[in-house]
């Protein structure tokens, strides 16, 4: 091995050691800066992809009309999402009517965002959105659509954020099932082979006996997801050695996502 190669190997080892010593916070900051650096490429790529898709599907319209339509669609979705949030709050209020700790709930503050890219890795289910710190987005904020829960933010740069989808095994959501006192933890499957990945609702009681069609909502435990967000519908239930497990169909078709809303708080 030549002297140059040995020096190169030593430099490489030093840089590798430096990266391996990164903690979670440093990693997150480093990732945020890389995303920030590449944000213009992602947004340009996303625009190009949409144009190509638009041409491919034969949808041709005037630029002005397209912009107006997009704006109206965003408004419409925001209103529907607010409406959904109100319905979720109503559901929560009804559920807690008999409880003494009744308190008035208000609707969520929603920031509309557009999907820029979808997951490019095999083992993590993520999307990136065109909102970041400049829009007051922070890590661990819930992301929803008018149909229900999408996931939560993880890495946040100034203008772009990564959203960990509910279908990822790492996205753990405390849930309750409508019409029952059952509570559990929703997590995605590690590997989803089908087009529509399913969710697992774990740690239910063995006597839960959930029926297909019952809806699961966030229970608000854990602090990340507020109570009452629609997660998914029960498809099947089985008992395991220690607990019961239900398979859920996600409320939102995550493969068709275009616009989402980040929940930044309550109004």
């Amino acid at each position, binding site marked *: 091995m030549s002297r140059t190669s040995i020096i190169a190997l030593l430099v490489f080892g030093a840089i*590798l050691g430096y990266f391996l010593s990164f903690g979670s916070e440093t990693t997150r900051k480093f990732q945020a800066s890389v995303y920030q650096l590449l944000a213009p490429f992602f947004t340009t790529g996303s625009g190009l992809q949409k144009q190509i898709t638009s041409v491919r599907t034969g949808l041709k319209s005037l630029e002005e009309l397209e912009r107006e339509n997009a704006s109206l669609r965003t408004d419409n979705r925001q209103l529907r999402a607010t409406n959904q949030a109100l319905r979720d709050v109503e559901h929560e209020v009804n559920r807690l009517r008999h409880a003494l700790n009744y308190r008035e709930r208000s609707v969520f503050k929603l920031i509309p965002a557009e999907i820029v890219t979808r997951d490019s890795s095999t083992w993590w289910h993520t999307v990136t959105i065109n909102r970041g710190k400049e829009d007051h987005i922070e890590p661990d904020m819930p992301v929803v659509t008018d149909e229900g829960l999408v996931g939560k933010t993880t890495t946040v740069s100034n203008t772009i954020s990564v959203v960990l989808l509910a279908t990822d095994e790492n996205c753990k959501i405390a849930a309750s099932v409508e019409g029952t006192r059952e509570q559990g933890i929703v997590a995605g499957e*590690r590997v989803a082979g089908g087009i529509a990945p399913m969710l697992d609702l774990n740690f239910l009681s063995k006597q839960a006996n959930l029926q297909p069609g019952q809806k699961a909502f966030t229970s608000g435990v854990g602090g990340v997801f507020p109570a009452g967000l629609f997660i998914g519908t029960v498809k099947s239930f089985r008992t395991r050695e220690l607990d019961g497990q239900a398979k859920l169909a996600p409320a939102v078709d995550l493969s068709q996502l275009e616009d989402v809303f980040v929940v930044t708080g309550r109004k």
Partner: protein
Amino acid sequence: MIFFFILLALVLVTQIAEFFIPPLDWMYNAHIYIVPVIVFYGAMALPFPLMLGLALFAGVLLDALTVQVIGAKVEISLGWSILLYAVLAGIMHGMRPLFIRGRWEVHCLLTGLCTSAIILAQYLMITFRRGSVLFSREVWWQIGGPGLMAMLMAPVIFWVLQWLARATRYPYLPERISFE
């Protein structure tokens, strides 16, 4: 040296492009990975120090754009992909004499195998972290599928890169071009 920077630029562009390539639903949602093909070509065409540089750049990009930080937990520490790329590229680099003689078929096969090896290593690491071992048909397809696709893409990508190398008067070209 120009060719090295072209490879760096191509790694960056393809890493971004991979975000816009949808997974193959007919192959159990297997993803298409182009970056490893470029890195492994670089492993054969570049001298050892530059090969390490390319592996470093590709590994940093891969980790920065894909690895997830959940709360205070990092599933795969930043740097592991650099090590994976460097080790696998080192193996490919060891077969450089074959490449210089213009025999590329082994490298095309190895590119596919090494691409799958990266995804398998990632899977083993997250499996270790998450604490339960699961190997289903879907898992094997998601590991093997990208390797298969890389193997199929390798001859075309190698040919394009070879053309670029000649266009930039890169001095370490094979004696015989097997795709001509």
